[in-house]
């Protein structure tokens, strides 16, 4: 709005013409209700202004001044009764009036009374406008209620009742509109252009528009009603079931999982965590792999925390693991005893193979070292462990232990 040029020709003209509308308000309303303006009293200058502004128009040389269509439409909207909630869809009355007016128009024309005919035609136009505005207002009021979810009442029950009322209103309008028989109206209009315009073109357009709007309102009302009913059922369910569980704290439902047909609600598959890894042997991916590696964030120093939340080993597994560990320890002790008995050095892996034990070589070596470190100082003095190491790679100084040799020191166990 701030960019609007208040001095432009269009703005000036608009303001001027709105002022003309205001200045002649009374005359225009009279004209709306079918009283032709007194041209002599109005004066030629005012008439020209009103006609230039397309407020009044003269349909033929001999006929009087009438409201132009846009102004008539505007007045219809301005005087529509927005408070009118009680829709009286009395379309039957409307049709009766139309028939009467059409008869009057033809009577007047038959007698050559064209001024009379024009007057009744204006009346007919108003009758159609009035019906139109009643329906439009009714539909607008329905939309207002719909769009606010019937906020003017508070409980769901009241909302459901209001929705039912609104629904009946729609049905009354739809039934009423169905009474309008356009074949009959076309016959009324005959070859009279004015009547044809009002009764066929204008009314038919409007009625088909209203049908569309009413159907839309109807489907929205149905949707809303379904939602209200669902909400009401939910509220009741939550409150009721909570009450029930409080009254019967030991209630146990049957085990639905054992039924021949288990409903989907109770059939939830166990989670499955797919794990993936980079295929390091795919040479042509090496570029991407390097980029991925470069993008890796520095590892946060939260190892200790991560450990504390690790899943505890399941109880039933404990026993088997302990038994295995004990067996491993006993086999290593046998290895130490064998060195003592035979009084000679031995490689851990040689002993493993010779004894046909099926421990993983890495675990075996690890346990041999661990048991050595677990010996008392005096016992440790009897042995010496030689580490047989290799470098991890030409550019990597990490030394890997390939095997250990247990040497019995000459002093032996003291």
């Amino acid at each position, binding site marked *: 709005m701030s960019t609007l040029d208040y001095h432009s020709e269009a703005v000036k003209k608009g303001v001027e013409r709105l002022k003309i509308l205001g200045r002649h308000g009374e005359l225009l309303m009279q004209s709306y209700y079918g009283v032709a303006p007194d041209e002599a009293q109005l004066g030629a200058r005012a008439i020209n202004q009103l006609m230039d502004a397309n407020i009044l128009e003269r349909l033929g040389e001999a006929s009087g001044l009438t409201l132009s269509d846009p102004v008539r439409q505007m007045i219809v909207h301005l005087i529509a009764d927005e408070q009118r909630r009680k829709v009286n869809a009395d379309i039957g009355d409307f049709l009766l009036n139309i028939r009467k007016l059409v008869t009057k128009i033809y009577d007047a024309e038959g007698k050559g009374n064209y001024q009379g005919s024009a007057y009744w035609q204006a009346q007919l136009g108003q009758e159609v406008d009035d019906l139109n505005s009643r329906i439009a207002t009714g539909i607008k009021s329905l939309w207002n209620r719909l769009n606010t979810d019937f906020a003017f009442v508070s409980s769901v029950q009241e909302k459901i009742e209001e929705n039912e009322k609104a629904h009946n209103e729609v049905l009354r309008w739809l039934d009423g509109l169905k009474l309008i028989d356009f074949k009959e109206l076309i016959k009324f209009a005959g070859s009279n252009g004015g009547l044809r315009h009002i009764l066929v073109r204008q009314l038919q357009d409007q009625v088909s528009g209203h049908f569309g709007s009413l159907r839309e309102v109807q489907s929205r009302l149905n949707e809303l009603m379904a939602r209200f009913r669902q909400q009401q059922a939910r*509220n009741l369910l939550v409150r009721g079931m909570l009450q029930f569980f409080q009254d019967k704290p030991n209630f146990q439902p049957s085990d*639905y999982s054992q039924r021949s047909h288990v409903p989907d609600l109770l059939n939830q598959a166990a989670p499955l965590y797919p794990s993936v890894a980079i295929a390091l042997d795919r040479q042509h991916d090496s570029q991407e792999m390097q980029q991925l590696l470069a993008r890796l964030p520095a590892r946060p120093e939260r190892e200790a925390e991560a450990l504390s939340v690790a899943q505890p080993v399941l109880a039933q597994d404990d026993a088997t693991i302990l038994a295995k560990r004990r067996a491993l320890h006993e086999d290593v002790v046998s290895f130490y005893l064998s060195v003592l008995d035979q009084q000679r050095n031995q490689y851990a892996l040689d002993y493993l193979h010779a004894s046909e034990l099926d421990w993983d070589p890495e675990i075996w070596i690890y346990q041999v070292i661990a048991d050595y470190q677990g010996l008392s100082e005096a016992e440790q003095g009897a042995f010496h462990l030689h580490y047989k190491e290799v470098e991890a790679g030409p550019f990597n100084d990490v030394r890997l232990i390939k095997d250990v040799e247990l040497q019995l020191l000459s002093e032996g166990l003291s």
Partner: protein
Amino acid sequence: MMMQHGYLLEQLLNGAFVCEVSHSEAFRQLQNEQTREDFDQYLRPLNRRLASNPEGSVWFLAWRELSPPLREQLSQQFKDTLDSLVPMLKLLQLAQETLGHENVLTANDILNRHDMAARIENNPSLREQLQALVQTRFFQSQSDDVGGQLKQVFDRLRSHGYLHQPHKDRHHYIVTGKIDYLIDLTRFIREEENIYIDDELPPSQEDLLE
């Protein structure tokens, strides 16, 4: 053809409940019947298939064929869900009363944790309800103050997929479609066990205050 659905597939296999709030794009994909058939085809060797609640507002994976061990797993799962049912229903009631809502929480409702904490803080009856709630096994919190207790409740709700937090550093949460699943399950139990619910329930505390 399933490549484009990789993310959704992974979510479902992980045991996620897919709804409009939690996975809007994925949920939209699932509205297509052909996509759902492709999924079922793909999941067949894993003995899984797509399943939804009756209204189709939330999707998850179900077993295709049930064997005795799988039935045992479902049975255990149902027991766990039952343990959470009463605390969850209590939570729904607490939220409804705290917010002064006419209706039970439903998908798409927005909850502001700080706002709720302030309201509960100022109302002894709501404080008592929250206190009782965090003493249940499902929500248990060691915290003494309303803020800490409510944080624990919200964390639990989020980790169980009932709440979606669009921004990690903000305090508003959106209720997901999984709440529909819980309500449907409650309804199922009620119908199966022929539990009678009186339409004219005793008035809630709020009604008494008015």
